[in-house]
C-alpha cells in the first residue's frame, strides 16, 4: 500500500495490472535518472568505507603510524599528514564515521519530528499550538551557533555517537513542521474518517493508518535530514569540535587548516576530504531531488 505506486501517473497504474516492486522502481527511475546517479555516488562512498578496510590498514588512520608529511607515493597513495596519519587510511576509516553521524542524527531527528508532527497534526488544538510554537521558536535561532555552544561545553568527551546526538538535538523541528502539514492533508481523507468512526483509538490510527501512508514521504525526508545533519556535523568538525580522536572527514579538514596545509602546498591533505564531502552532498542532493516526486504531492500529477 505504501509503495511507490502512489507516485505513478494514473495511466501507468492502469496498464500494468499488478506491477512488481522492481518494475515500479524501474519505471520511477527512468523518469528520475538523478535518483540512480545519486544512489551510485552515495553507494560508492559507502563501499569505500565497507570494502576499503580489506585493502587498507585502517590503524594507520591514527597519528604516528606513518612517516609524517609525505606527498602521495606508491607506499602512501594519498600521502600522510604532519602527525603521521596515512591519509588513505583516514579516508577509509573516516567516511563511514561521517556517514554514521549523519544517518544516526538524521534518524533520531526524523523520528522525533515524525512523532511530534503526527501528534500535532492529528490531535490539533492545544497540543498542536504548543508544539508548533516551540518549533517556530527553535527555527528562528541559529542552529549551528547553538550546536557550537553545546559541543564546546562538552568538548572533552565528545565521540561520534555524542556528536550525532548533539546534531540531532536540533534536527527535529523542520521535520516536525513538514510532517505536521502532511498529516493535516491526510487526516480529513475518507479512510481516516472511517477508521475514526469505527472506534479505532488515536494511537492505532496514527500507527496503522497515518504512518504507513507517510512512509514514502518519510523516505524522502530522511535523505534531506541526513544531508542536513552531515552538513551540521562537518561544520562542527571543521571548527575543531568533532570527536578529537576519530579521523572523521570534517576533523581531517580541521587539522589541515590548523597546520596550514594550504600555505605549505600540502594539497593531498585537504583536497581529498573536500572532494569526498562535495561528492557526498551532491549525491545526497541528487537522491533527494530524485525522490521529489514521491515527497511533493504537487509534482506527482505533473510528470
Amino acid at each position: 500500500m505504501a509503495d511507490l505506486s502512489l507516485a505513478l501517473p494514473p495511466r501507468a497504474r492502469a496498464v500494468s495490472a499488478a506491477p512488481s516492486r522492481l518494475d515500479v522502481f524501474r519505471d520511477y527511475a527512468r523518469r528520475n535518472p538523478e535518483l540512480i546517479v545519486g544512489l551510485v555516488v552515495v553507494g560508492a562512498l559507502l563501499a569505500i568505507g565497507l570494502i576499503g578496510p580489506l585493502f587498507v590498514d585502517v590503524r594507520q588512520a591514527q597519528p604516528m603510524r606513518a612517516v609524517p608529511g609525505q606527498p602521495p607515493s606508491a607506499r602512501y597513495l594519498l600521502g600522510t599528514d604532519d602527525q603521521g596519519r596515512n591519509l588513505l587510511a583516514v579516508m577509509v576509516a573516516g567516511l563511514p564515521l561521517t556517514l554514521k553521524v549523519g544517518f544516526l542524527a538524521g534518524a533520531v531527528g526524523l523520528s522525533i519530528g515524525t512523532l511530534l508532527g503526527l501528534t500535532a497534526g492529528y490531535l490539533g488544538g492545544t497540543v498542536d499550538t504548543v508544539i508548533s510554537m516551540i518549533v517556530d521558536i527553535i527555527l528562528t535561532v541559529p542552529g549551528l551557533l547553538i550546536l557550537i555552544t553545546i559541543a564546546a561545553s562538552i568538548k572533552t568527551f565528545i565521540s561520534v555517537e555524542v556528536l550525532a546526538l548533539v546534531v540531532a538535538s536540533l534536527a527535529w523541528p523542520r521535520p516536525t513542521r513538514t510532517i505536521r502539514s502532511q498529516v493535516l492533508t491526510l487526516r480529513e481523507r475518507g479512510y481516516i474518517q472511517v477508521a475514526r468512526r469505527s472506534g479505532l483509538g488515536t494511537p492505532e490510527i496514527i500507527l496503522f493508518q497515518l504512518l504507513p501512508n507517510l512512509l514514502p514521504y518519510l523516505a524522502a525526508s530522511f535523505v534531506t535530514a541526513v544531508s542536513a545533519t552531515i552538513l551540521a556535523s562537518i561544520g562542527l568538525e571543521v571548527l575543531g569540535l568533532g570527536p578529537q580522536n576519530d579521523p572523521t572527514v570534517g576533523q581531517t579538514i580541521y587539522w589541515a587548516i590548523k597546520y596550514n596545509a594550504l600555505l605549505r602546498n600540502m594539497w593531498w591533505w585537504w583536497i581529498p576530504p573536500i572532494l569526498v564531502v562535495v561528492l557526498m552532498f551532491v549525491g545526497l542532493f541528487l537522491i533527494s531531488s530524485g525522490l521529489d516526486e514521491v515527497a511533493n504531492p504537487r509534482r506527482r500529477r505533473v510528470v
Partner: protein
Amino acid sequence: MRLDYLVRRLIQFLVVLWGAATLNFILPRLAPGNPVRERLLSALATGGYQQAGIEEMVRAYNEQFGLDKPLWVQYLLYIQHAFQLDFGYSIASYPSKVLNLIMAALPWTISLLLVSTLISFALGTLLGALMAWPRSPKFLRHLVLPMMALSAIPYYLLGLVLVYALGIALPLFPISGGFAVGTLPNWSWGFFQDAIYHSILPAFSIVLSAVGFWAIGMRGMMVTTEGEDYVVYAEAKGIPDRGIFLHYALRNAILPQLTSLALSLGTVVSGAVVVEIVFGYPGVGSLLFQAIAALDYFVIYGVVFMTVLAIAVATILLDLTYPLVDPRISYRGA
C-alpha cells in the same frame, strides 16, 4: 495588524532570548566538573595567560555570579546580566569585556555578509529568471545542474578551494585577515580600499555558494508565472518580449524571493561563522573560533546571545514590515 499578534510576537521574542540565556547558564553546569572554574584554574596553573589577572578574575566572577549563593539566585543574577548585555570578562584576553570584543568584530561581519548577500541575491535572481525564460540564450538552460550542485556544497569548502586557487596558486588576493598586516583600523580611504581588497575572496565564496540557491528558487517561481493567464494575455496584446519578461513574469515571481531575502538578512550575523574562520576574517566568527580554541566560555556565550538577539530583532522587524513588501500577506486573524 492586530494588537494580540504583536503581543504574541513580543512574548515569543522574549522567550527566545530567555531560552538562549538559560542554555548558556545550564551548559557549563551539565559538563562534569565546572569547566569555567577548571579553565580559570588551569590558566592559573600553566601561567600561560596573564597570571596577575587570574586572582582578580576569580574574585570578579565570584562577585558577579555570586558563586557562593544558592543556584536560583545565581540564575536570576545571570539572566539579569544577560539582558543588560553584560557577559563579563574574556578569560583569554582579560581584562577585555566580552561585549567590547563583540562590538569590535560586529561591523566586519555585518558589512561582509550584507554586501555578499545582496550581490548573490541580485545575481542569482536574474540568472534564475533567465534560466526559466523560454526566449533566453540556450546555454543558460544548461546552468541548472551546476547551480544545483553549487547550492549543495558547503560555502566554507568553496572558500578553501578559492583560497588555494586565487590566493596561493595564483596570488591575486590576500588569503587571510581583514586588512594589511601592520596597519590599524582607521577611517582613511586607503584603509577602506585595503579592507575591500581583503574582503573580495571571502565575499566571492559566499556569493558563489549562495547564488545557486537564489537561482533555483527564482527559476521555480518563474516557471509558474509563465503559465499564468496575464502573461498569455500580455503576449496576445503584442507587448514586446522584454516588457513581458520584466513587468509581468519577473515582477510577480520576485515577491517570494524578496521574502526569503528578508529572512536571510536576519541571519546575516551567524551566516558566515565558518567562512570567517577559513579566511581569518576579523569578524564575529573568528572571535568565536578563538574563543572555542581557548575554551573562553564567556565569549562563546556572549557571541551566541548577541547573535540570537540580532536575529530575533531582525525577524520581528521583518514580520512587522512584510505586509508592506508583499500585499498578499496580512496578519488579520493570524
